[in-house]
């Protein structure tokens, strides 16, 4: 039974990732007061989550290829290749976060919503950079465990990073919004 086998193999992982997304969604569900107080905040949420997912899954799959090419493994993890990847991730996150903040502000103005640009861009930048640091560390831990056990990183990093990424990014947005709202 070909169809049965396919359902059996992919259904559990997809449901598991969905449960992870419920955790991310619940974080959004308790942010109602912040969403009300900070116009424009809801606009940046899909973009930050997409940026994080995009950057970290690409990172994971590059590390997977590096493993298959033999330039990185559990005993030789912290090398120049990995450092270049980490710097690249952080710089990308920094610039893309600024672009997200500016775009969200500009498009809101066109639609006659008037966010505070300093607040909005600070929230995106903080959330973008903090989630980048946390997810980079998590990726390195996952990849180390995968290497140690001899699994193929290509099968594991994608779904694992997508699920952790959504939750951590949502919590970072929540935290940054509270912090910025308290300081500014």
């Amino acid at each position, binding site marked *: 039974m070909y169809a049965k086998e*396919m359902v059996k193999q992919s259904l559990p992982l997809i449901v598991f990732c969905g449960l992870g997304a419920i955790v991310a969604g619940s974080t959004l569900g308790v942010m109602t007061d912040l969403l009300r107080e900070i116009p424009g905040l809801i606009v940046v949420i899909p973009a930050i989550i997409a940026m994080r997912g995009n950057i970290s899954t690409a990172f994971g799959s590059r590390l997977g290829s590096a493993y298959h090419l033999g330039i990185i493994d559990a005993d030789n993890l912290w090398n120049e290749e990995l450092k270049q990847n980490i710097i690249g991730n952080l710089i990308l996150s920094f610039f893309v976060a600024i*672009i997200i903040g500016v775009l969200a502000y500009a498009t809101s103005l066109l*639609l006659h919503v008037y966010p505070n640009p300093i607040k909005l861009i600070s929230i995106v930048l903080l959330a973008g950079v903090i989630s980048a640091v946390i997810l980079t560390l998590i990726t390195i831990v996952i990849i180390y465990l995968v290497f140690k056990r001899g699994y193929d990183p290509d099968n594991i990093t994608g779904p694992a990073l997508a699920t952790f990424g*959504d939750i951590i990014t949502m919590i970072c947005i929540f935290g940054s919004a509270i912090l910025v709202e308290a300081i500014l």
Partner: protein
Amino acid sequence: MIYSWKKIVKYGMPLLTVTILIEIFAGQILQGRQNSLLLFPVFLITIPVINSVGGNIGSVLGARLASGLHVGYISLSLEDKEMHDNLFISLLIGFITYFILSIVIYFVALFGNLTEDIALIEFIAIFVLTGVLLVSTVALVSVLTAFLSFKRGLDPDDMVAPVVTTVGDVMGIVFLFLMLGIFGVGI
């Protein structure tokens, strides 16, 4: 050394910029309907879930099609039986997943006092219908992206996941509000 941070930034930027433009569009739809979302926070919980499941199913389908095209057991034809089977199974997995998750979300929301006055049956109907519409769309986009990129000599493995997740994020939000409109919730 094969990686340099400059190359990672340079090659990452174009795709990310396009993705972000589309996601900001999705975000503006959310902002436009923010009042009904704040009235029914249970639907705030559903947004990441709808998008995650749609994106995952589309990406898995795309990866399977890519392998089939590379190895040769799937042909570049819209009549291909193997492709039809994969498409059908994706829809089936989508239906089952959305059904299971709708019940979990409803009880999470009930526990957090976020359900207001929406009945379980109505919530399941809205969530599952949104999901089925989204998975159908995402599956078609996945097949088209895989086939078109393969035809042009590009690797479908690189193309399908970003295209499918971005299209899925926007369409998931559009379909959710469509269903909320049809069911008359939050207007």
